[in-house]
């Protein structure tokens, strides 16, 4: 199985799909299924595109990290698609392209190619958010995204000017051989800021509110779960493979991350609308994930992304669906779980997993990450994580108590939604109870990581 197909097939289907409107959703599901099935046949290693070896040509890379990332993104993508395809069938082509973009983004081993895929997935994301019927927010997203990718491009071109290569592995090797690393810090900062826009780190994420505040069942989980997962995984991969942290760069990065985490939690704590609570909470989680990446805990960060993505998928789908008619004020939604025990169950598990409570996947991840951080004595990070957990707990408890309190509200949920979300929730429990799959996966992932960058202590 050539992994270039994971890009080529959805792209080709996208080209075909504009011919026949009825066919498009089928093509979308077919492409998505093809990728998920195909993932079990891939082999690790490089796949050269166009016959030119690195660093001259572009190549796609596959290892356990990327494979896991692809599984996460594609399975969640398929779930979102299955839940929404009937209502948003006109988005099929866009979704096919975004599938192309996300898969390419994860697999590519070339920085400029990454920029191209960043733009592809970015543009499809802008279009996905256009279903919110809030063009102003989508426009703001577009502006922020374009500024971000321009910054990224600027950074990468400076790297090219210095090292004469665009290949990730090649650059990583050359950077690690430098004795004085200060020259590369500016491009790294530019790339950090550029990707930080997409990963929604704090001062750069003004687009998030407009997008997720009005999110529907397609755009909410898509942006908050699938895109967030893909972007942070790609970002994290660059962080561990390439980046070095020194001097002022550390100060700036750690400030951004700590502010993201603490301010994100504080804003979620203060918010009254359920969607706002969730969106600010996902800002904090993004900061947390990046924090783990820069601390060198790549595999645990990967699992945290996975746990968060599943949780956010559940949370956003439920809230977006429930708030379609009456809005998402916390008091309006009171008691929606009274007659929807299964939905309430999924929601509860997802939020408990985000807080990091035992029995759920978030717990396993948080505990192991904390264990490592304590071993490394990175106390600032630890304090941030623990404080964040406390605040998360408080606003989720408030949310849960409100949503569970019996009331006259009657909201009905689609039966398919119930099934899919329940399955995802069960997944959180399964990974929370049986640790072996995660542990063994972690080992293979760490074999595959060639850590060129350096981690540091916050």
């Amino acid at each position: 199985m050539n992994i270039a197909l994971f890009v080529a097939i959805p792209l080709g289907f996208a080209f075909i799909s504009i011919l026949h409107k009825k066919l498009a959703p089928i093509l979308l599901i077919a492409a998505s299924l093809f990728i998920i099935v195909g993932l079990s046949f891939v082999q690790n290693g490089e796949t050269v595109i166009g016959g030119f070896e690195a660093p001259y040509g572009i190549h796609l890379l596959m290892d356990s990290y990327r494979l896991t990332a692809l599984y996460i993104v594609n399975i969640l993508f398929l779930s979102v698609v299955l839940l929404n395809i009937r209502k948003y069938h006109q988005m099929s082509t866009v979704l096919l392209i975004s599938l192309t973009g996300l898969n390419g983004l994860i697999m590519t081993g070339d920085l400029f190619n990454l920029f191209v895929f960043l733009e592809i997935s970015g543009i499809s994301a802008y279009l996905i958010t256009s279903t919110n019927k809030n063009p102003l927010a989508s426009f703001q997203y577009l502006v922020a995204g374009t500024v971000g990718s321009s910054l990224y491009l600027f950074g990468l071109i400076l790297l090219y000017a210095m090292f004469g290569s665009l290949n990730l592995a090649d650059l990583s090797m050359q950077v690690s051989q430098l004795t004085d690393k200060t020259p590369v810090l500016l491009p790294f900062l530019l790339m950090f800021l550029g990707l930080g826009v997409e990963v929604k780190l704090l001062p750069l994420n003004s687009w998030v509110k407009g997008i997720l505040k009005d999110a529907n069942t397609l755009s909410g989980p898509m942006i908050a779960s699938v895109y967030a997962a893909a972007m942070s995984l790609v970002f994290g991969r660059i962080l561990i493979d390439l980046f070095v942290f020194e001097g002022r760069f550390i100060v700036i990065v750690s400030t951004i991350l700590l502010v993201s985490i603490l301010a994100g939690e504080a804003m979620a704590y203060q918010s009254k609308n359920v969607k706002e609570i969730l969106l600010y909470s996902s800002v904090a989680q993004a900061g947390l994930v990046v924090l783990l990446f820069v601390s060198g805990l790549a595999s645990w960060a990967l699992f945290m992304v996975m746990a968060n993505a599943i949780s956010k998928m559940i949370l956003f789908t439920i809230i977006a669906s429930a708030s379609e008619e009456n809005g998402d004020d916390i008091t309006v939604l009171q008691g929606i779980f009274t007659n929807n025990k299964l939905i309430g169950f999924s929601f509860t598990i997802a939020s408990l997993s985000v807080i990091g409570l035992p029995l759920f996947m978030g717990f396993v991840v948080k505990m192991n990450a904390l264990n490592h951080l304590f071993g490394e004595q990175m106390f600032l990070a630890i304090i941030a994580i623990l404080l964040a957990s406390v605040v998360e707990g408080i606003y989720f408890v408030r949310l849960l108590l409100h949503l569970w309190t019996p009331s006259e509200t009657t909201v009905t949920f689609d039966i398919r939604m119930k099934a899919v979300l329940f399955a995802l929730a069960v997944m959180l429990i399964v990974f929370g109870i049986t640790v072996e799959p995660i542990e063994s996966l972690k080992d293979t992932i760490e074999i595959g990581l060639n850590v060129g960058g350096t981690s540091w202590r916050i």
Partner: protein
Amino acid sequence: MKKVLALVFVLVLGALIMNHLNDNNLFAGFGDAMLENRVSQSYIDRDATENNDGVVFDESLDLESGAANTVTAIVADYRSFDTLGEVTVLFISSFGVALLLGQSKKRIALEFKPNFMLKIGSRALFAVILMTGVFVSIHGHLTPGGGFPGGAMIASSMLLLYLADDEFRAKMRGFKILESVMGVFYIILGLAGLMITGFFLENFLDNGALGTLFSAGMIPIVYIIIGLKVGSEISSVIDHFLSEEGA
């Protein structure tokens, strides 16, 4: 006040970046770039995968990439995956524009009535521009240009017709099919490379002698595909922007 402050900020930033780059010993100054330290030298020497005895115009046969225009060699051969992505970006934006503005069926009313001279004149010009566009696309591997500028020219010829002919809109439907088919062709070309040589988007045709029209293997084909695709996409963007608001 705010504007002055903003100006000061960006100027300070510009100066700081310049200062930083000047102090940076890895960053070559303007004009001092050392190509031998970069991958690009291999693109010029065409020895990324195999050694050759130097590249000579009109003589070298079957180089790893046969385009006389090195930029084209990079765009459509060495890094043609980027180009596929680029096409995708254009495709999705054109589709997105259609999605965002496509509700209206009526085209925007022009303030003048196209007269006979305009109709005939634009048709004549249309042919010239179209031919130039096609020429630029086909000769992309030899001269500056290629599928994208060519496609843009094709689209501008369409714009001309659009302005001159009220009924033209009805004929725009065909572009969608063209766009789709060309995209599929590109993918199929890539998959054919995968089948034949084992690499996606690998050039599996004979490269010929450097500098001749029928050389550089797939590149002219790719550029024709791109030219037509870009042309139809930009045309459809134009079409949608010229539609009436709302209604």
